[in-house]
């Protein structure tokens, strides 16, 4: 699987943090501009896959730190948890809750259960794409 391409390897090193940062950016702006959890998750997964191609499977797993299957579980949990506050407030399941406040440096900040849900989607997408990709790549060896 190792492509032994110096250019790809160097590019992979520099692109990985940039792409991951970009994916988080896409995730957070998703509610107002094109982006969101699904797209962000795909970008992040693609970033890791690019790294996988430029390096090898072991470094890819190392750079990911956690097993992608754990991301799947964590994402599902976040998505379900985001539905709960509404239930406790006696509203319909999945009714969005919003908290707006101003922080010194960041200015106006909007937090919501919707964001938690979107982060859940983000993690599930990364988790499922990478579970498939990494295991296929490993089965290769």
């Amino acid at each position, binding site marked *: 699987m190792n492509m032994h391409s110096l250019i790809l390897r160097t590019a992979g090193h520099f692109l990985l943090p940039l792409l991951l940062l970009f994916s988080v950016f896409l995730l957070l702006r998703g509610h107002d501009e094109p*982006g969101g959890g699904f797209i962000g998750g795909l970008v992040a997964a693609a970033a890791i896959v690019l790294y996988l191609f430029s390096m090898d499977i072991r470094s890819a797993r190392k750079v990911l730190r956690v097993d992608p*299957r754990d991301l799947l579980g964590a994402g599902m949990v976040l998505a*379900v948890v985001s539905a709960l506050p509404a239930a406790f407030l006696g509203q319909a399941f999945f009714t969005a809750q919003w908290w707006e406040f101003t922080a010194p440096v960041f200015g106006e900040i909007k937090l919501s259960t919707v964001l938690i849900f979107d982060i859940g989607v983000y993690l599930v997408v990364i988790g499922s794409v990478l579970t498939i990709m990494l295991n296929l790549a490993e089965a290769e060896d």
Partner: protein
Amino acid sequence: MLYAILSTFLVAAIAPAVHRVTGRASGWVLGLLPAALFLYFLSFLPAVSAGESIVLSWPWLPGLDIHLSFLVDGLSLLFALLISGIGFFIVTYAGRYLEGHRDLGRFYVIILAFMGSMLGLVLADNLIAMFVFWELTSITSYLLIGYNHENADARKYALQGLIVTVGGGLALLAGIIMLAMAGGSYELSEILANGDLVREHALYLPLLILILIGAFTKSAQVPFHFWLPRAMAAPTPVSAYLHSATMVKAGVYLMARLNPSLGGTDIWFTTLALFGAITMFTGVFLAFRSTGVKQVLAYSTVMALGTLTMLIGIGTETALMAAMAFLLAHSLYKGALFMVAGILDHEAGAKDFLQTGGLRTALPITAAFAILAALSLGGVIPLFGFVAKELMLESVLEAPGLVGILTLLAVLTAILGVAVAAIVGIRPWFGARVETPKTPHHEAPPAMLAGPVVLASLGLIFGLGPGLADEGLVNAAAASVQGAPVDGYLALWHGINWPLAISAFSLVAGGLLYWRWEQARRALGWVDRAAEYGPEKGYFKMMDGLVWISEWQTRVLQNGYLRYYVIVIVAMTAGLVGVTAQLFDVSVGTVHFERLQIHEMAIIAILVASMLFAVLTRSRLGAVAALGSLGFTVALVYVLYSAADVGITQVLVETLTVILLVLVLFRLPGFLNLSSTALRLRDAGIALVTGGMITLLMLSTLDARLFDSISQYFIEESEPSGYGRNIVNVVLVDFRALDTLGEIFVLALAAIGVYAMIRFRAEDHRR
């Protein structure tokens, strides 16, 4: 009430922990629950014997008119007291009987859950709630019968019981839904008040048949009687509980409960009286010629269930009184006798009456109370069984029809019943001492004796003072079965009359039969050979048929070739769409080709070209690349029509798909053309038809506007209520979040599926 029933499930959940902490005493500790429940139900007694019926209700699914409501009247209270009272003895008994068994903790869980389900079943006022509890008893009893799950027979017969009773349960579900439609309510208390409404409804006959199938399977009526003796694979405490007081009586309960609403018609009388009488005789006949301790008792239970069904069918006031008295008498003596059977097995290791004899000196207390219970079984004066039997004979003689055949069967049953009682009450205890597999060194422990002693004594007490049972509950129970107050009463002595004459005659004849038991059994050897063609044969044939069908359809549909799966799915879609389009006369909308702009034409040209290349190329990599270009062009279309999010997603998914395919491509063998021209033509045909059908579908949606589009709402509400300007995202994570949750769940499942496939394949190869 709700908490009373829930408490059984809660205690069931912590039962293994309780068992670990309390060790040997666990049976007594857990027995506190049924004892407390018994006292709780007892507190309803004064009101209920005064003729009240109490309805308690909690909303469950109010939208569907399903409430968790309970009805406490004579009938349900009688059952509830039996279930909790005998439940107490069973739990304490099992604590000693199964002592040291490694799964005793699990046993407590299931038996308590079963008790809760049974209580729910008899107390439920809502039909749906009752059905849920009904099925729960089937499932828990399956687990109980299969308790010794390492024994293949136990598993097999547990499954048999489950399939018969759950199959009947399905019929019952359909039946009670019809009943609710006919009676205009799901609440039993309301349906029972409007009996004429149901009896005159057009659905009366089908709903009656369906409900009776449910009741007959559960209560082991001929031809479904075979599962009950087989269920003796269960540990003895289970048999004592399920097959004396509870589960098998659920069907009887149902018939008794619905009697005010369904009963009183000719078909009700004929069906119940005939099936009941035949079951009664079949049961006692098979009991007489069995030798296994539990087999004899199980078949005599079949006899009792048949008697009860017959009496409910006859439906006169005397018959209903008899049914309730018989129900009580049977629960008392059969519970006691099954527990005695367990003692025989536990202390002497004897599972067959032929292995026993002369045990009265070794087990004096057991013997005394076994004989007492057996006397009640045989209907000997002055036991409560005698009171019930007299009433039974009286109501048969006064039946509104079929008197001849019912009397014949009842007399034969009475004779054989005495013989069976003698087998149970004389054979193990008197005569020469027979060498048993284990020599009993001591009497059974108190926990195991308590049940037989108390239950058998109650049989004597109620017999000497029938007024106790009568005014206490039997009258109230018969009144709720009849749907009107009864003015009959129970008495030990009715004077010299026909029933007494029959009783006396059957005592003598039954005694003679017992004296010649060995010869009679040998003479009846042909029954075994005939039984091979009985209903159980039908059951096994049906199971074989089911296995055959599932093997066949697995071979055809799940054959492991991806291409066939795809063909089935795709052809099915095309077929269904085509048929629907024909049926509903769907028209194709108008397409405005003249409005096409030059860049749009270019995109279409690229799409068509990549598609053709993907189909025609012989290189796999080429095909993948062509598919990729197809996908990117589609993304371009999205962007052109200003669906930026969808476009971006499409680009990313395409990229990852190509990477995925490249990863897989390495694993494929070299490209070989193995398909014949005919196969390729077939595939091309399916592809063309499906593609054409989907195209037509798309075109027809152009003009179709069945409902107003919801997009306008989303566009307007996105910012004010969703706080987001990106409508696609707001829809995904807010407006339709539940859909998205479902989708990511599917995504996660798919990933885990792929993971399992890759991993397990890899491990197989390593082996």
